[in-house]
């Protein structure tokens, strides 16, 4: 589509776009409507009995079956693994250094990522107990962003056995 105009090629912009309608499905609908109310819902696999939070695509990836009952989990949880971010990048909004952690909510068996704040990065450790800090209720939406970050709950660390299988 480029045409020589003198020495410079003619540049043509041809942006493409398609609109999609994404259906969350029954499992993620529980999860998202729960978040809107400040509650955390996962789903239990009827075969392995593990509770998925978030419920992913509504199926147990291990057993290949539809997830079963809806289960309220958290709000407290345990850090299984974490990463201290020291490297600045484009579009960064959080002050360095900060901690991104994998958190396993009480009653759930699948980790998800969230921020850890209100403590020094150097204090964060595996097994640390954390609790969510929510946005103002007026701002709640169908989103995990309703939780601003997790902070230490002050409880004693969870024993390694509690989260070893989720590493």
């Amino acid at each position, binding site marked *: 589509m480029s045409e020589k105009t003198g020495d410079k090629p003619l540049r043509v912009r041809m942006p493409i776009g398609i609109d999609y309608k994404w259906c969350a499905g029954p499992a993620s609908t529980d999860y998202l409507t729960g978040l809107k109310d400040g509650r955390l819902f996962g789903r239990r696999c009827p075969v392995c009995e593990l509770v998925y939070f978030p419920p992913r695509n509504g199926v*147990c990836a*291990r057993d*290949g*079956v539809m997830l079963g009952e809806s289960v309220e989990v958290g709000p407290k949880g345990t850090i299984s693994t974490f990463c201290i971010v020291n490297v600045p990048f484009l579009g960064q909004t959080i002050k360095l250094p900060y901690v991104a952690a994998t958190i396993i909510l009480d009653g759930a068996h699948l980790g998800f990522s969230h921020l850890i704040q209100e403590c020094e990065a150097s204090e964060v450790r595996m097994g640390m107990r954390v609790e969510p800090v929510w946005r103002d209720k007026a701002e709640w939406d169908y989103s995990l962003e309703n939780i601003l970050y997790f902070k230490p709950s002050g409880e004693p660390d969870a024993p390694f056995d509690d989260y070893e299988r989720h590493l």
Partner: protein
Amino acid sequence: MRDVAIVAFSEGPVTFGSTSTPVEMIVPTVHDVLKQAGIERTDVDFWCHGSCDYMTGQPFSFVSAVDALGAWPPIIESHVEMDGAWALYEAWIKIQTGEAEVALVFGNGKSSAGDMNRALSLQQDPYTVAPLWPGMTAMEGLGACAALQAGTVTERQMAEAASRARRDGAKNGNVLVSGNESADELLSRPVTAAPFRDHDIPAMADGVSAVIIATGDVAKKIAKRPAWIRAIDHRIDHQNLGWRDLARSTSAAIAASEVGVHKDKVDVAELHTTFSHHEQLLINALQLRPDATSITPSGGALVGNTLMAAGLSRFGHAARSIFSGSADRAVAHAQQGACLQQNIVAVLEGN
């Protein structure tokens, strides 16, 4: 060559506007095809999936589809960005190489997730054609005009194909549209996108199809009457619509010749007809005799176009005609791309 047969087929509900995720839609159909075969998922040693990321709007959306299979203990799986019929072709090759005995093949698509007429434009050349957003109906309209002008297809043949698809769809039940109109009645309806009337354009659908294929002795254990894949061939026409003759399907003709469609009688031919004029183009290319062959008795994609599953469904329905004994020799056809660009043709036999 190893003997390979289709031994089970399941087709999920053909709908439009499913509120499940694509992954949730896959699970029941995969379970059903395993149940029909009477095997466990751990008996499957190769999984192959056909789908299209442009339909979901998610890059690598096929990766999440593995969740639906249960990947523990670890499985060997692959994916094609094509209709599930191409996944079947890959699985057939995998078995031919000796690396698998039993393969589960599935294809799925959710047309209701967006404007598929527009999305399918992205199958075209990304520099010169796709940015024009020609739309599938317009591209197929060019093909239909070329065929009508060359006389390789008539308007009456298009109406007859649509009439039969709607009647057969009513018998099948698992389709989106059906009806008992004669070809004359359909021809009396208004042209809505020249040269098409509404019934010439496929009813876009959400759906999932799954097929199990297996080698000789295993196939005989699973199915009373396996549908043996005697020959299968895949040919591609040029992508550029202006560089090929749209009045005929050269690639389908070559594939049909390679698998020897014409060498014996054909009881059933399941043709992947998405627009009504495709049927006559394919009858011409495959040299079928409609007086001796039942053409697409399932109703086909015209009455329920489950994108990325409809081609595999043709293999499944052709195999069913063998399972039931209603056919001894069947032809399965699948297509992909605009104006029958890619074609797979296979001959299935009961003996």
